[in-house]
């Protein structure tokens, strides 16, 4: 293992390594030249002679490359092949171990990927770190209108949205999708650009929208409802029985500002009176239905933003909302807004811990399987030891075997996780509240799975490595020999040939074993010799 590490070190710093070697050889040549000059040679002759004394430096550099790189890689690939062969020889063990681990790793990865997308992952927008959410519930449109009037002087930008469910059917059965009303600069402030057509602009949100009632649709809706048609821009989309013109498609992976909701249709606030008619909430001061987010100016802290916001003196507008009005407070919102988060954070953490324990059990299982396998392989291992393999080499074999099992387990675990993760998310949905979570396996999830696999490798190989200490060279050969000799009915010829085989193995394994001499002598086959030989082996 140390050698593999050295080789990797070499492979990454190869040019440096070669330069060092050349410098060293050049220093050598200079010393030789000085010595020759002291012996009375002219400087040029000494330089030439010193070069001749060195011989072919290029070959020497080449040879060192072989030493550092090729040999270690050879060793590693040899170990890998040996481990694969060992696993192929016991497919039952391999299947059970990989299966156990796949379930353990899969369950963990599935939960972690939910945890990751719900709690850890940042919104897929420009610079999510500078977004801040107006906390403590929902807000009315008049409050938003006040903030919007000052958005560029107080912040880098601000936007409001309100999650809705809309019926897209033109008649007949209703087709409900998750949607949202957004303010005009919503996409502009988030920094999300259209993959087809354009996004909404402040003009769409104004009174006299140039294109009439417009809508932006999600990548998913575009693929599902419009079959990914290139001419989707300009087509009609019926929302709550009112025709809208599709002006753009959002990029894949952008689900809106609400984590756990796939916002399929986005309309400007200007469309709200069209849909709700006299019921419109735009002018109502006591309708609390908006979420508001701001983008902080570069260098602006959340506290400064809070102070700026409170400077607007908006308290009269929301004093009636609760009996105990809190001052307006922004909170960092790099990970977006989510109603699910508050509801599921604690249960999720508990489940992650529980499933972690399940993995630990799976690891312990695999460790005992590996240990049992090592004990069952005592004979093979002791033959290897007798043939001159070092204990470290055997330990490496066990380690690489567990590594292969863990890697295969992790691979199957990932496949299992992508299936079970989706299943779990669907379980969270209710009829009123559809939960849609993008469970992309990003680097965090992959790193998590890799960490699980390495952890299980270590846990699973410690016990067998310790168990291997008890395996002695040639010990099981002795037992096998005795067992054969003990069967009296065994034909004499077979017995003696098995003995010869045993003798040969100790002849080749121990160069200094005097067994070799006894093998040549005719009395080798006698019973007394046999017992002596077994004590040598």
């Amino acid at each position, binding site marked *: 293992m140390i*050698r593999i590490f050295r080789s990797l070190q070499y492979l990454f710093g190869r040019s440096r390594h070669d330069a060092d070697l050349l410098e*060293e050889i050049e*220093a050598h040549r200079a*010393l030789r030249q000085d*010595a*020759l000059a002291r012996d009375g040679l002219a400087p040029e002759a000494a330089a030439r002679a010193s070069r001749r*004394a060195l011989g072919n430096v290029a070959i*020497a550099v080449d*040879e060192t490359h072989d030493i550092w790189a090729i040999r270690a890689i050879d060793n590693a690939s040899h170990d890998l092949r040996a481990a694969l062969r060992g696993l192929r020889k016991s497919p039952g063990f391999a299947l059970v171990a990989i299966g156990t681990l796949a379930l353990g790793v899969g369950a963990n990865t599935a939960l972690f990927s939910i945890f990751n997308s719900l709690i850890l992952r940042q919104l897929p927008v420009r610079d999510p770190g500078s977004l801040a959410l107006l906390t403590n519930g929902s807000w009315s449109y008049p409050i938003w209108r006040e903030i919007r009037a000052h958005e560029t002087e107080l912040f880098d930008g601000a936007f409001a949205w309100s999650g809705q469910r809309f019926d897209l059917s033109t008649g007949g059965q209703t087709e409900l999708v998750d949607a949202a009303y957004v303010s005009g600069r919503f996409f502009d402030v988030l920094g999300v650009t259209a993959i087809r057509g354009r996004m909404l602009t402040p003009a769409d949100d104004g009174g006299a929208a140039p294109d009439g009632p417009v809508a932006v649709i999600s990548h998913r809706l575009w693929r599902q409802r419009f079959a990914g048609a290139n001419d989707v821009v300009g087509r009609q989309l019926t929302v709550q029985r009112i025709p809208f013109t599709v002006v753009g498609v959002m990029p894949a992976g952008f689900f809106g500002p609400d984590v756990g909701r796939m916002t399929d249709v986005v309309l400007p606030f200007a469309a709200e009176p069209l849909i709700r008619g006299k019921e419109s909430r735009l002018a109502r001061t006591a309708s609390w239905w908006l979420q508001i987010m701001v983008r902080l100016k570069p260098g602006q802290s959340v506290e400064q933003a809070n102070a700026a916001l409170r400077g607007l003196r908006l308290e009269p507008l929301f004093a009636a909302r609760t009996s105990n009005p809190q001052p307006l407070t922004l909170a960092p919102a790099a990970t977006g807004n989510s109603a699910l988060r508050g509801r599921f954070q604690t249960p999720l953490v508990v489940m992650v811990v529980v499933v972690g324990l399940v993995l630990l059990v799976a690891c312990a299982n695999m460790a005992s399987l590996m240990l049992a396998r090592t004990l069952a392989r005592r004979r093979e291992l002791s033959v290897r030891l007798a043939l001159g393999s070092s204990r470290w080499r055997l330990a490496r074999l066990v380690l690489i075997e567990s590594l292969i099992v863990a890697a295969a387990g992790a691979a199957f675990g990932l496949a299992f996780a992508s299936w079970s993760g989706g299943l779990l998310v669907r379980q969270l949905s209710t009829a009123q509240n559809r939960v849609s979570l993008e469970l992309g396996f990003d680097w965090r999830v992959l790193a998590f799975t890799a960490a699980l696999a390495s952890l299980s490798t270590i846990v699973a190989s410690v016990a067998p490595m310790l168990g291997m200490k008890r395996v002695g060279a040639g010990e099981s050969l002795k037992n096998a020999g005795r067992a054969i000799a003990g069967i009296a009915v065994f034909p004499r010829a077979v017995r003696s040939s098995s003995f010869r085989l045993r003798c040969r193995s100790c002849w080749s394994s121990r160069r200094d074993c005097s067994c070799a001499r006894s093998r040549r002598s005719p009395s080798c086959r006698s019973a007394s010799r046999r017992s002596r030989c077994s004590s040598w082996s």
Partner: protein
Amino acid sequence: MGLTNAPSDLLPGTLELLILKALVGGAKHGYGIVEHLRLASDDVLRVGESALYPALQRLLFNGWVKAEWGTSENNRRARYYTLTARGRRQLAAERAEFDRMIGAIQQVLGTT
């Protein structure tokens, strides 16, 4: 003064043994090792000078010696090699093996 670069006609593996032995006395750079071998063998053993370096690298790779940059007699940067604890063990083991081998060869040559 030998000016040849004849390939080492030593027994295979002997060069490493000799280098390890040469380093018992303390840290040496490559040139120092070559000169030590030449002087200690009364000019009989002449190591192919660039062949020394792959051998040194093999010792480094196995962790039997370690290398440190220092300044040589003529004020150049030179790599000095020192024996490690594992190197000492290896030297003892190889030396025993070598003695056994030479003994066996002599025994064979001695039989009539």
